């Protein structure tokens, strides 16, 4: 089905969308722009409005204000059944009374080539031989692939995925995630997917939009988000981060771990982002190790210095133990700093 796809403009634009439920503002002036064929991950804690945004794009909720466009079609007032927007729901939402084949073929009822398309979608998802099985006989991963096959079979302009991996256990999650990322890549379909898991977002998304309290805080590629967070909140939500206070003078900040180079010049009191993997431990300083967690390929240390509790990760077996006196030193690239209180 990827080969027969007519390559048109399938850019998805959400333009200044707002939505309130009663007195709760679920979406506040949200704008996103996904280029044709790209995948955007909406990352945020539960209740941040990401699922509402997805439902607005699908047409299952109507926005109070703003527009939803695919290519040059304004979908804002189009009913969901006419939008050509496919959706994979949390948990799959397979029709329990239909076979896998009937589920996948549901969106193709009018098409003369229904059977071939179903077969093709099943082949693509590695589900050959499952046509006559019922959903309750499938494993979590299989059900998720059927749900994806069902959403993709009618060749939607845009694909939406709502926490597609949240119902899977840790091991399966990693496998299904890679498979899905691969399939989305090969299909070249405009995709928005919602997750609260930073790893999911980074692995599957070409770009990531971080949401909090109904607003999009920052959008960028995974590496840009990780290396250049625009706020302390984004820094700690996207990966692990130590946020420490310091005094800036140009491109250097004085902190409790010594001077740290920052990526933009600043002056006065700031907060600096120190990723744990950029902190180096040295014996005999004014910090004290309070916890050591050995993960195999690396070791996480918790170090208390004065009132601060810092986390450091080294790629080695534990060198220090609880109670040791250590010093910390920053050994990373120029990092992000914010004026305090932001």
């Amino acid at each position, binding site marked *: 089905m990827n080969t027969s796809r007519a390559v048109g403009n399938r850019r998805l634009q959400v333009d200044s969308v707002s939505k309130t439920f009663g007195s709760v503002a679920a979406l506040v002036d949200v704008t996103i722009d996904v280029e044709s064929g790209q995948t955007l991950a909406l990352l945020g804690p539960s209740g941040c409005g990401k699922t509402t945004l997805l439902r607005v794009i*699908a*047409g299952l909720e109507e926005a109070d204000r703003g527009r939803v466009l695919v290519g040059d079609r304004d979908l804002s007032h189009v009913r969901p059944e006419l939008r050509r927007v496919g959706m994979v729901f*949390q948990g799959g*939402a*397979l029709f329990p*009374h239909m076979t896998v084949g009937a589920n996948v073929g549901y*969106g193709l*009822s009018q098409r003369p080539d229904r059977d071939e398309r179903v077969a093709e979608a099943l082949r693509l998802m590695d589900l050959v031989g499952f046509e006559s099985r019922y959903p309750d006989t499938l494993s979590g991963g299989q059900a998720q692939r059927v749900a994806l096959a069902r*959403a993709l079979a009618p060749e939607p302009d845009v694909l939406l995925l709502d926490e597609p991996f949240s119902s899977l256990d840790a091991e399966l999650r990693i496998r299904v995630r890679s498979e899905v990322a691969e399939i989305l890549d090969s299909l070249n379909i405009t995709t928005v997917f919602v997750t609260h898991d930073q790893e999911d977002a980074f692995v599957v998304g070409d770009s990531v939009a971080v949401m909090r309290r109904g607003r999009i805080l920052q959008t960028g590629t995974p590496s840009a988000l990780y290396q250049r967070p625009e706020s302390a909140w984004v820094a700690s939500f996207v990966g692990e981060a130590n946020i420490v206070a310091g005094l800036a003078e140009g491109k250097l900040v004085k902190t409790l771990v010594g001077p740290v180079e920052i990526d933009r010049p600043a002056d006065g009191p700031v907060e600096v982002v120190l990723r744990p993997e950029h902190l180096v431990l040295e014996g005999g300083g004014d910090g004290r190790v309070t916890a050591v967690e050995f993960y195999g390929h690396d070791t996480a240390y918790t170090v208390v210095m004065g009132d601060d509790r810092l986390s450091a990760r080294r790629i080695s077996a534990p060198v220090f133990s609880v109670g040791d006196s250590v010093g910390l030193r920053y050994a990373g690239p120029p990092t992000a700093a914010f004026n305090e209180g932001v």
Partner: protein
Amino acid sequence: MGSRVSNRSPIGGTLVKWLAGIIGLIFLFPIGYLIWGTVTLGDEFWSTVGARTTLGPLWNSLRLAILTTLACTSIGTGLAFLVARTDLPGRSVWRILLPLPLAVPSFVGATALLAAVGPGALVSFLPRIDGYWGAFFVLTFLSYPYVYLPVLTRLASTSPALEEASQLLGGGRRRTFAKVILPQIRGSVIAGALLVFLYVLSDFGAVALLRYNAITRAIFSSRLFDRSTALTLGLLLGLLALLVAASQRLITPGRISITDMNVSQVRYRLGRYRRVALAGTVLPFLIGLAMPVGVFVFWVFRGQPTASLGYGGWGDDLGFLGAPLLNSAAAAVVAAIAAVCIVLPVGYVGARARGWLPAAVTSAVSSVFALPGLVVALALVFWAIQAPGVLAQLYQTFPLLILAYVLHFGAQSMQSSQAAIADLPSVLDEAARTLGASRGRRFLTVDLPLIRPGLVAGGGLVLLSTLKELPATLLLAPIGFQTLATKIWGAAEDGFYAEVGITSLVLIALSAALTWMIVLRRQPAELPKRSG
């Protein structure tokens, strides 16, 4: 609200709401018509209310209902406790057998009593048992399952930890029962008792055949020549029934609601009381089901001279049963299907809509179920007789009979379909929407297949109730349209016991099979045993 509901409801939110509203109004018709009818009586209404011919039957019904309810409550609760919580011998069999008297309609039970005892009956040297005590006897042994079933269900889900705690704290069995078990099952006991009360108030068959002048019998005998008495009594009975039903809502069962499903319950050893307990368990079943069946079997074999076309004894042609059987089946099946379809929009609104509408329409439908069948039929009869133009021709036609069944029993189907619709995950509808399915297609391919078991179960309840219904059928059936129920009624009045016997056996068998399939198979299964 409009857009949100239409988002969730597959068959058009606004349309369904309008439909449900109209259906709700139709269900308000019987009581509405009675109120209107009595209001137009003017002063005559007040003089009728105060008359002895009104207050007498009313009091007769009340005292019968009170005594029967007390008896059923003791018997039903006791049996439920014996089966659920003791080492009663054969309790897994009793569990299934004890509710079966529900399959015997009251007029059949009364007929059995008439055919059993009295001059010309099986035991002819004893006097007839009829009137107050006869009705009490018949109704008690047919209605105790209304208490037995809810209490049994509740006893299977109480928390054993509480009882064990009470025992460990030194509370004896009696104290544990009074202070720990009883408070937990009180809600179910009261709910069952109110059902019995309502059932006895509404009963027509038993009191009429046993010649006890309860309010239903008074309505039936006065309907043709004394319209104002019939209307007034009908309204009083209807309001009384609604009051009882409403009070049931106030007393919500399970106020103390520590529930623990699928746990093994504490079982109490009966010890030297085993035999007494067993006798106490066998007796209600014998009287409620075995006795009627036995009496009918006796008459079927013994035979009895009858009118030319009836059944005179073993070996006689059973062809006379064909028409009533077919009519009963046709009426029941048509009523069941009609009820399921008509009430479906109310089920949708009840399960999904917000605001005042769902409560209003579901109460309207439920209220007619609480009304006695005789009262529903009376309203339709009086309306049809006076209806303008072509509508008057509806009187004693099949459609009006079906309408009466649908109005009276629609609530049974509504509860069942509403529960099925509420269980339907709305995400499936949304999934179908994003796959491009229209409203109609979503309803037919997603909702309908998934709620079908609920619809069938609801339809089955209507089927069963229609099969056993007597007073509405007597009042509204087309001339010459005999059902099993009216056949039994007619033959019992004439004392043709052999004919009553064979017809009743057929009705009991049908009804027992349906009761088992629809109601009892859904009871919680026997739980693992454990002594305590």
